[in-house]
């Protein structure tokens, strides 16, 4: 503090001596390091938490995707089942057709055949009714429950025929 009446001028006293100053600087440095480390940790924690959030979002998205894939898979599965069924049915049908054509004797010529679920309609030409009855009708009867045949005589003495064969049980045809 300044003085006007003192014979000597006072010198400003220091609040802290050298040792205390060093100690305070040391404490400040340590404090800064701790604060910096705390900031680093909090930044890291923030980054991690944002990472976690994005990961959670990704997980949710992936779960949704999985759900959609599951749905698609189940649909595909169903389609596959259906395809399998169709394939099997086709296989059976092919077998049936093959069997059917195996049934047709060489003397009879088929001009048209309509195969429905529960019926088989055959159009063709036979040299005689007997050939037809013995060689084609007999196996047809063993397969179908009901057989109706209509003959039309041709000029050359042969017969055009229309054979309608019905199955009461629809499964029967494919078998």
């Amino acid at each position: 503090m300044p003085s006007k009446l003192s014979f000597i001028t006072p010198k400003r006293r220091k609040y802290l001596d050298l040792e205390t100053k060093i100690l305070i600087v040391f404490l400040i440095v340590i404090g800064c390091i701790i604060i910096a480390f705390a900031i680093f940790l909090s930044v890291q924690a923030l980054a991690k938490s944002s990472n976690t959030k994005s990961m959670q979002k990704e997980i949710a998205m992936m779960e949704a995707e999985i759900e959609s894939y599951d749905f698609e898979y189940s649909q595909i599965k169903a389609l596959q089942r259906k395809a399998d069924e169709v394939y099997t049915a086709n296989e059976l049908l092919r077998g049936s057709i093959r069997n059917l054509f195996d049934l047709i004797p060489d003397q009879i010529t088929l001009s048209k055949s309509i195969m429905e679920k529960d019926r088989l309609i055959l159009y063709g030409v036979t040299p005689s009714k007997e050939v037809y009855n013995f060689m084609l009708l007999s196996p047809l009867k063993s397969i179908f429950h009901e057989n109706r045949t209509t003959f039309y005589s041709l000029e050359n003495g042969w017969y055009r025929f229309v054979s309608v064969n019905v199955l009461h049980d629809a499964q029967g045809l494919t078998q």
Partner: protein
Amino acid sequence: MIKKWLKYLWPDAYIVFTQSPEGLNATQYILKGDKPDIVGESSFAISKNQISKDCATYIQEYLSVYPQTQLIFLTSAPSCSAVGTCNMSEMVEHGIDMSIVKYVCKKNFSTYISIMDLEEDKLLFKPFQLDYLYSPFFIIDEVRSSYSGVVLVALHRQNRLYISIYKNDVLLYADNVIISSSDFEDSIDMSGDDADEMDDADFDLDDLDEFEDELDSLDGLDDFDSDMEATDDKEGFDSIEEDEMESDDELKEYDLRVHEALKTTISQFYSNEKIQSDFVEKIQIIDTMALSDNLFELVKDELFCEVDVKHIDLHKECLNLMLKDTANAIKT
């Protein structure tokens, strides 16, 4: 805000030192708010014109606790005096060699000290640095009551009288008088081999001789002693009471020395050609010890003056002076 915080952590502390023939007296204060509180009082010896180890340890400890401690010293230097001007040429006219003194001016008067004494006071506190060194004449100026006529104000310390004569609150004359150097002589550490110390003792003894010569010529002292003897005879005190009376006598002898010093100063004031001397109408005694009432009666009777006595705590007044001084210095 920071200043307040710093003041809270490190309050302003003061140690006021005064010197007596026995050594150094110290009072410690701490400033709480605006009011200084006394923390403690201590006394220390002085060896080889330096503070003792005890005193150094004490200051060091105090500084370590309160780094803002200010060391204040009221000088006892024999060269310290005052003069009623702040003009250097006028001071030279008063016989002051300005090349060997340091002076401080306050309003219309200056107080000065020889540079040698100033350095001695500074060296006394080595290795510590003294913050404030005040003149007792500033204490007189602060403590005295204002008076429109001619008034002699005497600050009494142990074996020392600082006298200022004011006329209408303007300093006319000042003197620094040693009352009795016998106690000083006893207190000097004679075991020391320091030649300078012996020189100082010689100087004091010379002063004593001169002073005793003056005292021997006093009629009043003889009368006073014979009065005391007569009283002793009448009362017929036993041996213990006689011892007490002896110490009383010593005290009275001391009072008489004070009285004589006042008388001498007044006569010197009247005889000083450089000053337009007027009759001293009033004497104000500022006492820091315990002068007897007999003295005041004696002064009143012999010097035909109104006597006003004020008892002060010198350390407290010194601190108040410092606080006032620093406050004024900051303002300006």
